[in-house]
């Protein structure tokens, strides 16, 4: 049995989740502080990949990173690096489609974060970055963990955009989802179901881990919630 899809999917999902974690939190934090109209506008733009069919997202990614694009073409000419049709191309796809999940969940967590905690930190002389790390993030831990799980799950299951930008080459760019689809379409149901099962098992393990990590913290509440 060819185990390549398993290892490929895992590395793609893992890297994508890390990228999404950093960019999602950063974007959510910055945007939560914007005035209402700008905030809404950014929300719509950054949530767009969620409502577009993944194949369409993949198509746009090709336009953005393919050989004919400014970025893609430049990299091919100058460094002979091809951004598409490689295993790591799938990272672009996964990041784009899963980003909105992390972003929205983190935004929600930051929105419900009690601003007086931040003010208190400021008046005590704590630098803003430290307030973010030591006060905001731990307080919003649950929301952020939830977002991470969602993003990982979405990245792992990503098919449409991945297929477009990475293609399907067994042993080189195949992921669990493109393999499942290919096997299912060509009639190899048994193998397809086997991969589905593997996928479910992975998600199970990830979820259990996150739940365990979550339960180790006592309930976190904002200062105002404490008063109720």
């Amino acid at each position, binding site marked *: 049995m060819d185990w390549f899809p398993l290892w490929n999917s895992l590395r793609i999902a893992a890297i994508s989740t890390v990228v999404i974690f950093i960019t999602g939190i950063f974007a959510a934090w910055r945007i939560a502080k914007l005035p209402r109209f700008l905030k809404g506008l950014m929300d719509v733009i950054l949530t767009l990949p969620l409502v577009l069919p993944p194949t369409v997202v993949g198509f746009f990614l090709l336009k953005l990173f393919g050989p004919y694009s400014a970025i893609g073409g430049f990299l091919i000419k100058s460094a002979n690096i091809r951004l598409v049709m490689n295993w790591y191309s799938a990272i672009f796809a996964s990041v784009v489609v899963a980003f909105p999940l992390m972003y929205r969940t983190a935004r929600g967590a930051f929105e419900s974060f009690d601003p*007086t905690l931040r003010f208190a930190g400021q008046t*005590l002389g704590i630098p803003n970055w430290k307030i973010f790390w030591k006060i905001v993030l731990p307080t919003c831990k649950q929301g952020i963990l939830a977002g991470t799980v969602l993003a990982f799950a979405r990245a792992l299951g990503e098919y449409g955009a991945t297929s477009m930008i990475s293609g399907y080459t067994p042993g080189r760019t195949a992921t669990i989802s493109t393999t499942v689809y290919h096997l299912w379409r060509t009639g190899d149901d048994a193998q397809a179901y086997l991969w589905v099962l593997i996928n479910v098992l992975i998600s199970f393990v990830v979820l259990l881990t996150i739940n365990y990590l979550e339960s180790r913290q006592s*309930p976190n509440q904002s200062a105002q919630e*404490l008063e109720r």
Partner: protein
Amino acid sequence: MLKANFKKQLHTFELDIDFQADLEVLGILGPSGCGKSMTLKCIAGIETPDSGYIELDGVVLYDSARKINLSPQKRHVGYLFQHYALFPTMSVEQNLLTGIRPDQAKDSREKSKQVLQTLKLEGVEKKKPHLLSGGQRQRVALGRILLNSPHILMLDEPLSALDQFLKWRVQLDLLELFERWQKTVLLVTHNREEIFQLCDSVTVLTDGKNDAKQTVTELFSAPQSLSAGVLAGYRNFSKIEIIDLEKGLFTALDWGVTLDSPKLTQNALHCGAFSQSLKVLGETDQETQNVIPVACLHQFGKMENESLVCSTPGGDTGNSILYIELHKGETLPPGKSESFHVSIPAQDLIFFNG
């Protein structure tokens, strides 16, 4: 010494602040939504005024002319928030330690231990805020601020979040703290009791503008405006018409009687009296000065807190109604809508030019 002179346009009104405070406990008294908290936030640097000048102990915190606007981190103001803003994921000890600035990090453990002792918080060091009582949380918040060595202490409605029966204890604690503190304190509240109990001086904030600073006694005996009077606890007001300024004679139009008082001023337009100043006259009382015939509309309260709502010859609505708080041992007129008389001692009448 704090110098605060700034303006900020808010939703429905403009905040126009101008006062100074030096080594005193200054209360800012105003109704909810009048901009009290915003004033503190501007001084702390959490919000920025539209224009003006703020200086603390010689350091310019904000100057719109010279485009100076120090970050909150640099201002060294101790701000006690209404709900204390303790960091929920940290223990009491960790919360306290966040108060210590890096340049004073020496002996931080020692210092925090001392604060724990002084504020009677021993035993709860490892607990998280949500497990503490309201009073404990406030003390932790105060401790955190004290460890921060701020140049001014600002408290936002410090007693409002507490249960009634805790308030008096906390009041005592705060008084002790102020005595030890020896620097300027700003206290913002809508509750005149807190002003009375805790403050040396007070400025009244209504519709965004603050009145001139007065001592607390001055506020209660001579409020500068009707709204200040309301905040100070006066409930009885009447429009007046001066009859004879020299004799202090005037007609209280809303109450429908003629009264006299040596405190009458030339520009007075309204008079006022505390509910406690009105004396119920029994049948045998000989009082002749400033007597008002009234009829009782409602009677409420029990035991030591009985109050009456009465109509006057001027009517039974609006300012024509008199609120009377009965004193201990005072005779109660029998039954509702009974007519009787009350009198106001001449020196208990106050006058407003507006």
